[in-house]
């Protein structure tokens, strides 16, 4: 069984000879450091710009969604008038219509609710 509690050591002469099997490389030319660091900086800059573009794109998309939502809300907020109440009455007679007063039923009370909206002073905006 091996002892897992410590780092197995090798004789230093063995380690030295092992290392000498794999010779060290000659020194790199002096200009290489600058070249590598410049390429690396350019790479990091590109990465930063990509990230910023991604953020800008995401922000623009979110703004578009907000504007579209706002416009659709506004367009659905047109004033109702007494004609809408009349139309609803006809629809209910035909078995259609919608639950205006949110009481879970589609009946005459919905027509009344719509008629009340139409005669409100604020122009019947829902």
């Amino acid at each position, binding site marked *: 069984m091996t002892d897992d509690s410590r780092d197995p050591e090798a*004789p230093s002469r063995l380690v030295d*000879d092992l290392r000498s099997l794999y010779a060290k490389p000659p*020194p790199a030319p002096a200009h290489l*450091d600058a070249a590598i660091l410049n390429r*690396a900086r350019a790479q*990091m800059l590109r990465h930063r710009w990509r990230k910023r573009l991604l953020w800008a794109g995401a922000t623009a998309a979110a703004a578009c969604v907000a504007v579209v939502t706002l416009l659709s809300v506004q367009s659905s907020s047109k004033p109702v008038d007494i004609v809408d109440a009349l139309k609803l009455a006809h629809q209910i007679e035909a078995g259609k219509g919608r639950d205006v007063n949110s009481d879970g039923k589609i009946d005459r009370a919905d027509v009344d609710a719509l008629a009340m909206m139409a005669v409100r002073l604020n122009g019947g905006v829902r």
Partner: protein
Amino acid sequence: MTGGVGLSDDPRSDRQLVEDGDFDAVYYRYRDWVASLAFRFTRNHEDSLDVLQDTFVYLASRFPSLHLTASIKTLLYPAVRNLSLELIRKRRRVTLDDAGLDILPAPLEAADDRGELLAALSSLPATHRRVVVMRFVDDLKLEEIAQVLGIPLGTVKSRLHNALQMLRADARTRRYFEI
């Protein structure tokens, strides 16, 4: 190699250097280690410089969003290894598997004692030989080896222990263990 005055002696940990965004300090700390590793894998000075460059450009691509959980060596080692393999395949059009990299030492100048060591080393199972080379030649800690190879620390220790036992039992390398 020269350059990076005082930077390689920077007392900050790897994690701190990354958090500080100090790429230059990381470069000067690991440049020579990467160059040696690349040279061991490629056995060619020009190729090793290409690998050195590509390794740090790769690191730069990950650097801004890098969150270190271990030594930076565990990130660099596989990069150097893979870039070296890629380069060897491309330049020399040879088929070399991953394990083959560990039995390609620099050419020996003469038939000296190290020839026997190389023979004994080559006779070890590939998994054991790799751990020996990573520990004593590449100077990785046991935890780093475990991380790089994706195996448990106990397995690394046991492979290293067994490899040393095999070298001790081998007539060609027994003398290293005699006091």
